[in-house]
């Protein structure tokens, strides 16, 4: 770890939204497109504050809707810009077609998505359904746990998106309400240190960009094998993004003194018979309960998913090997599938990681808190499963009977 002075970083108590905005500002984007939506709005307000004070020198585009926000940043990226936008839930849904264009054209867009419930039932509350709904958009999707990690993940997101070997847009997710408005201690690095962290991008080969006078066009039709080639390349880039993210995380740790473990964070999993797989802010609570259970002698641990797409299949297979019971907590639902969406993906690996019972827990929908009681309940069920007792495959922990 390098020695740090006040010039290197400031310690601030700021919300998750402010942390996201600081992260974006520190990376010096060229074009920022903004549209308000709860619980994201503070991000763009903060960015306009930075622009007003001169801390941020960017083309600010206050568009008339999220669909345009995504289109503006994608095109600006095609013209060679570093870009940023932020959204949430319905806003994410409204920009879905443009998200497909961004990933299909391999525009290295970085966006934060402040997780909020999405479909039909209007809920101004937290939930990861928005992120889940864009799973197959071809974006890299990261999930942060706390305010510090939001800022840090935005920095890492630029390294990942703009890496010449990747060139895939990155979405940084964090829980609306729980993190968006929660003020926490955040170390805000200096612009200089962030520039140093991003400098490696300048040394890479240049990606194709649109410039006047050059007979290059982007958005050509992919015809038959041409389409297949581009899809294959995209899928391969997603695969490469896993190791790239691990490496970036390590480099980040060496430069900033904070490492998170890459695709997944393992918390007290070493000798754990029972492991919970979860993501986002609920992991703070889960860690507290894991500590308590450990004091009671129960061998439990947590695997925190920091990357949802690409899905860290290899890492998960490795860490879940030979456990007695695995529980997956989803802050979203899977319509027409058994259990939560992340659960079903973990299940798809179960043949590889061995004979553990895998249980699905649906919790925290629409701001129904994932309390320590809920986590205890999950661990009790997993203990029973570990003993070989019959347990329900899916439990809606957030549903009171």
């Amino acid at each position, binding site marked *: 770890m390098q020695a740090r002075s006040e010039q290197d970083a400031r310690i601030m108590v700021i919300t998750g939204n402010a942390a996201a905005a600081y992260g974006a500002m520190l990376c010096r984007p060229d074009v920022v497109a903004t549209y308000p939506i709860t619980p994201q709005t503070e991000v763009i307000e903060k960015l306009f504050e930075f622009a007003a004070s001169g801390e941020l020198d960017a083309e600010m585009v206050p568009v008339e809707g999220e669909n*345009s926000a995504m*289109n503006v940043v994608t*095109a*600006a*990226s095609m013209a060679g810009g570093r870009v940023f936008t932020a959204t949430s839930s319905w806003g994410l849904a409204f920009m879905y077609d443009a998200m497909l264009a961004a990933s299909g054209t391999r525009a290295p867009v970085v966006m934060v998505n402040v997780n909020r419930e999405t479909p039909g039932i209007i809920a101004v509350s937290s939930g990861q359904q928005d992120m889940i709904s864009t799973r197959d958009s071809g974006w890299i999707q990261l999930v942060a746990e706390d305010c510090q990690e939001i800022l840090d993940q935005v920095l890492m997101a630029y390294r990942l998106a703009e890496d010449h070997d990747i060139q895939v847009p990155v979405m940084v997710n964090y829980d609306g309400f729980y993190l968006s408005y929660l003020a926490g201690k955040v170390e805000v690095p200096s612009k200089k240190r962030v520039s140093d962290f991003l400098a490696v991008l300048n040394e890479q080969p240049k990606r194709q960009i*649109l410039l*006047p006078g050059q007979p290059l*066009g982007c958005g*050509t039709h992919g*015809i038959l094998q041409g389409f297949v080639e581009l899809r294959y390349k995209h899928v391969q880039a997603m695969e490469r993004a896993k190791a790239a993210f691990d490496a970036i995380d390590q480099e980040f740790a060496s430069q900033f003194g904070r490492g998170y473990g890459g695709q997944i964070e393992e918390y007290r999993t070493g000798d754990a018979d029972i492991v919970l797989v979860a993501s986002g802010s609920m992991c703070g609570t889960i860690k507290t309960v894991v500590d308590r259970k450990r004091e009671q002698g129960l061998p439990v641990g947590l695997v925190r998913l920091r990357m949802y797409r690409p899905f860290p299949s290899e890492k998960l297979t490795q860490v879940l090997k030979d456990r007695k019971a695995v529980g997956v907590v989803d802050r979203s639902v899977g319509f027409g599938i058994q259990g939560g969406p992340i659960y079903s993906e973990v299940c798809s690996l179960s043949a590889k990681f061995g004979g553990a019972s895998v249980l699905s827990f649906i919790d925290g929908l629409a701001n129904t808190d994932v309390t320590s009681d809920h986590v205890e309940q999950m661990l009790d069920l997993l203990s029973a499963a570990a003993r070989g007792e019959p347990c329900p495959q899916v439990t809606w922990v957030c549903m009171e009977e």
Partner: protein
Amino acid sequence: MTEKKKKLSKVFDYLQYDDPYAGGLTFCAGCPLESLARFVPQVLGDDIVITGTPSCSAPVLLGQNIGTWHRMPYYGTLMTGAAANATGLARMYKRKGIKNTVVCFNGDGTASDIGFGNLSGAAERNEPFIYICYDNEGYMNTGIQRSSTTPAGARTTTSPVGRMTHGKDVTSKNLPLLMAMHKVPYAATATMSYLEDLAKKLLKAKEKKEEGFCYLHVFCPCPTGWGVPTDGSLDLCRMAVKTNFFPLWEAENGEIRFTREVNKPKPIGEYTKLIKKFEHLDEQGVARLQKDVDFNHSILMRLSGSCEQGGRHD
């Protein structure tokens, strides 16, 4: 035989740049959109970056795999976000200090329907690019469906003529006027039969885009979709102007000025009778369209101040 006057039309003076397109393009025979697509870069120059969306021009603006039909840098994107994409490009070039012309080239479906919100948004923010809408009054590339610029009474596959329905049952959206009312630096109408007028407006837009958003609405009949002979589109362009169905005007910061006065407008029936999509119209149907034409024109007269200068010019 009289002495031959060997003098090229002065429109050639406006064509200062090479046609960037290949010889054989996928446009239907006689399509004036092909004329427009080729005309625009010959006038505007070689600093264009063009954006296009799914439409009749998409198979030409966008390439196929590595191959392409023209030499312009282009970004092929979505109908929903056409103007937003042009915004992103224009802002980035502005930031880099690159002087060039971003052209957002779309049909009326994108401009008046699915991409209207972000067209309006870009105009309101005064984004520095030129938006060209070629208006063929419907979704021609998907096979002739009605759009909001399809005129009242017109037959399309989604406003059919039958026992119960008689073509489009509502009036069209006056998109160029709506755009002028955004008080943008420049908005204008043009059509393919008056090429000098069109060229002047393109050059004016190129100049005015330094101040911000410019909008050009180009009336572009579709021989295939409207039921017109392949050599008939220019007659329609002229007649649309002569009947006041499509008046030629320009607006700077919302101030409207006619660029071609029509002293004795012909009745709209002279126009509709040339086009199969109107062939089912009875007297009442024609009268209804005439009323619409008169209303639209009267608004322009009032906004241009032409009324005060002596009432109607016809």
